[in-house]
């Protein structure tokens, strides 16, 4: 079995703060991390590798520093990494990003399962996973909270999907794509041996030409959507905070809320 995990390097949003004076984003010295949901995707691939002796790949599309994210995935136990990096990709929206990732997956070839995180913490779109599945004409299961079974012989996988009001059980024929939520597992920490191995491993860099894509098909020019303006939302007005006798506090709060609740 061959499993491919798609990940994204994102800013560690814990440190994204708004400068109250200029109302702008303070991003100095913000570290980059693997998108939190992708950590579950990596862990799930490594677990499947241990259970089914699968061969695992990790792919990311991103600037040169995204290599750190790939090395981290290798240190956790993924076998091989591929870095899609090219200035031509700047400004790619979810349509183009899913196309580029799909082309890379096709180039790896002969895959059984693709795993993505539910969404990235910086863009929050949840569009790239299903987008890849569609470009590759694969069935999909989004918001997967459990892989119940994989029948390797008949290529059937059973999963549980987390919905708003419960969960759904689906069966998919492989190859297929899933996106995963936090409930699916608890990611492990990389081992020392894993870290050493990851450090030494060579990671190929694929550019648009390696994927058979023309420059105008990718990046800003290939993207159907365009960002025309970016701004900071109006900051919330300063709140009214009650302190002191609990009963009085509660009465004051209830007075404030009653028009909104009744």
């Amino acid at each position, binding site marked *: 079995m061959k499993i491919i995990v798609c990940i994204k390097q994102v800013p560690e*949003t*814990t440190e994204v703060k708004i*400068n109250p004076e*200029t109302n*702008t*984003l303070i*991003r*100095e010295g*913000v570290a980059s991390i693997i998108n*939190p*949901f992708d950590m579950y995707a990596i862990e799930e691939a490594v677990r499947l590798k241990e259970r089914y002796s699968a061969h695992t790949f990790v792919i990311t599309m991103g*600037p040169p520093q995204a290599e750190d994210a790939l090395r981290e995935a290798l240190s956790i136990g993924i076998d091989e990494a591929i870095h899609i*990096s090219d*200035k031509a990709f*700047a*400004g*790619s929206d979810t349509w183009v990003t899913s*196309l580029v990732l799909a082309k890379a997956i096709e180039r790896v070839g002969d895959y059984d399962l693709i795993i993505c995180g539910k969404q990235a913490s910086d*863009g*929050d779109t949840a*569009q*790239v996973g*299903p*987008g890849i599945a569609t*470009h590759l004409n694969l069935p999909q299961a*989004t918001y997967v*909270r459990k892989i119940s079974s994989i029948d390797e012989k008949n290529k059937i996988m059973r999963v549980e*999907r*987390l*919905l*708003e009001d*419960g969960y*759904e059980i*689906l*069966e*998919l024929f492989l190859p297929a794509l899933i996106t995963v939520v*936090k409930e699916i597992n608890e990611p492990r920490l990389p081992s020392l041996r894993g870290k050493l191995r990851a450090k030494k491993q060579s990671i190929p860099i694929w550019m648009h030409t390696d994927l058979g894509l023309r420059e*105008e098909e990718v990046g*800003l020019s*290939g*993207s*159907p*959507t365009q*960002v*025309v303006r*970016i701004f*900071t*939302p109006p900051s*919330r007005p300063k*709140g*009214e*905070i009650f302190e002191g006798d*609990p009963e009085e506090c*509660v*009465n004051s709060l*209830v007075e*404030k*809320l009653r028009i909104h*609740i*009744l």
Partner: protein
Amino acid sequence: MKDRGIRVIKEKCVGCGLCMKVCPFSAIVLENNLAVIDLSKCTLCGACKEACKFDAIEIFKPQVVDTTSIGEHKGVWVFVEEEDGKIAGVSFELLGKAKELAKDLDSEVVAVYLGYNLKEKYSQLFRKGADKVIFVDKPQLKVFISENYANIISSLIQKYKPEIFLAGATTKGRSLVSRIAVKIRTGLTADCTGLEIDKEKRLLIQTRPAFGGNIMAQIITPNHRPQMATVRHKVMKELEGTFSSVGEVIEENLDGEFIDRRVKFIDFIKEEGYKVNLADADVIVSGGRGLGAPDNFKLIRELAEVLGAAVGASRAAVDSGWIPYSHQVGQTGRTVSPKIYIACGISGQIQHLVGMQSSKIIVAINKDPEAPIFKVANYGIVGDLFKVVPLLTQRFKEIIKR
């Protein structure tokens, strides 16, 4: 290629460094008092251009592609989603918004409804703003499977050529429209909080939060149709039922195979014990680490019960095993935007805030006056939640009964 998409106009740049500060990708540095953009990091998001007080940053828009067929596209479509066999609230809200957009475009609102035994249900769609209903009624569509729905809707879009297509930003909606947008090659913007028409250009201006709501972006789909967007439940307003309950109805009997045999629905298991789910709730009461023990979640549940609210939780409470993951609000859980969000014993780490800070009214109850949750709260009580929450439950019970 020398200039790829973006450049700093050296004559105008004064080296103030503002662009460097706003860049979400740390792609700008100052060299010799001039802004220099690292193109390997830049995503052409435009934050620097917006921030620059001297118009010193230029972004080149891509070449316009063939747009001759854009004018053929007419109508604002809304995907009608079902929930528990009924039309979901978010679909009615979208019809309300679609009515507004269609008015600005001098166009019509079309509800697209797939499923089984729909005939008794679709008249509601006219009352909520639809001018026309296109429906596909087949037993194979009783259960929502994104592949099947995407196949059918893509072919309907190709046949009727709508200008705008809206769907709820639900688990169903997101999984569905991402497939459609790729299939028919058009732009899709997730989780819009604002939708309006630029009348002059007949463009849909889509506003959405990014970076957990720390920045807002306005996005357009200039050269492809339909312009597709998803919107969360409760963001738009449902129209009051002032419209007629009749309108044009088109039943589509599709020829050909639209069922993807590679996906099979086995079962749906409803979560028991909670009457209101987070996505649909007008009010959410959430508990965090301050509760101290799993049993204390009953305080939260009691207050929620009185208010008809859903129960949420911080990551700390979920990771401690006090409540299932499906209740987690925040970066690795769900994003919610209810009318009122009441956070009890939640300190308000940024990972939690990004999941709830677009709520209309935020109420914080915490014993630590320095807790960051108070910074985003409209109202707060500094105090012991074990005293405050039961009092609150009691007071609301009295008021609501009256």
